[in-house]
């Protein structure tokens, strides 16, 4: 069973597909759950404390805004931990503020830099594209099963 980083990291479809085809999805919920269930200082709503932008320095330089570094403290460890990644490009769902947008760019850059199997797709717009989309994910995940 491989650990698959999914982008958009909150995607229901990718999370379900990865689980359905027998692997473990790594997304936002995993990192948030870890923070929400760890004792420390009260920092609602996401339990992101001033320590997180410091941890984010591992993936982003000090002159990068703290919003990006804070977000990277969630995603960075998962990008390092994952065995493969599935990216959906041009996802309306991944739209957000400048912090989210820059984090997304950095995240995709880090995934593409890492030497691991990757699958890049776009959301389907009709049934035929839907079949190609699911078949591509199924093939990708099935092939991983033997290699990892």
């Amino acid at each position, binding site marked *: 069973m491989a650990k698959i980083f999914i982008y*958009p990291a*909150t*995607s*229901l*479809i990718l*999370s*379900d*597909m990865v*689980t359905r085809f027998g692997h473990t*999805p790594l*997304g*936002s*919920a*995993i*990192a*948030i*759950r870890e*923070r*929400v*269930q*760890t*004792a*420390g*200082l*009260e*920092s*609602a*709503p*996401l*339990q992101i404390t001033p320590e997180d932008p410091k941890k984010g320095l591992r993936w982003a330089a000090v002159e990068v805004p703290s919003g990006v570094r804070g977000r990277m403290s969630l995603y960075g460890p998962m990008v390092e931990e994952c065995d493969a990644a599935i990216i959906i*490009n*041009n996802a*309306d*769902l991944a739209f957000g503020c400048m912090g989210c947008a820059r984090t997304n760019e950095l995240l995709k850059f880090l995934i593409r830099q890492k030497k691991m199997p990757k699958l*890049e*797709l*776009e*959301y*389907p717009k*009709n*049934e035929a*594209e*839907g*079949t*190609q*989309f*699911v*078949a*591509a994910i*199924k*093939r990708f995940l*099935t092939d991983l099963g033997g290699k990892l």
Partner: protein
Amino acid sequence: MTDYSPANVGTVTRYVVVESFKVTPTDVAIRAYEVAKGVMIKENCFGLGIMGKEEDVNRVIAEVRKMDPAYIFVKDRGFPPGDARRCRATLGGARPGFHGIEFEMTILPYISHALEELDTRDAATVPAPEASQTAPRLDVYTLKKLIDAQEP
């Protein structure tokens, strides 16, 4: 800043999203309650939130998925059900994160269709999706429509 003592440590929470013609979220909730045994189940407009020990949650999910496998979807959630930091009962408006699910629910019928088709067809015979050559840009007519749609 004050100290934070987390609740529900060691549990997982998962959403079950129902986009089916045959079963409703209520049907799925009733089935989930039947096999709950120690997990917390919260019914919502699009399905269920299930919280408990991972193996128990997986067991309940495996059971409810059998009701309509291609039309029931599952995703992880960071917060427990009803958490005041996220629940719309305390915040008002849609829960942050709902809009993502709402967007993907428009695509779920294509995914369900594909899952059913791939039950009888080998995925290797399906051609790979075409990669988009150019990044789509927001055209001026769509932008105008968005501006006009804004409420005063």
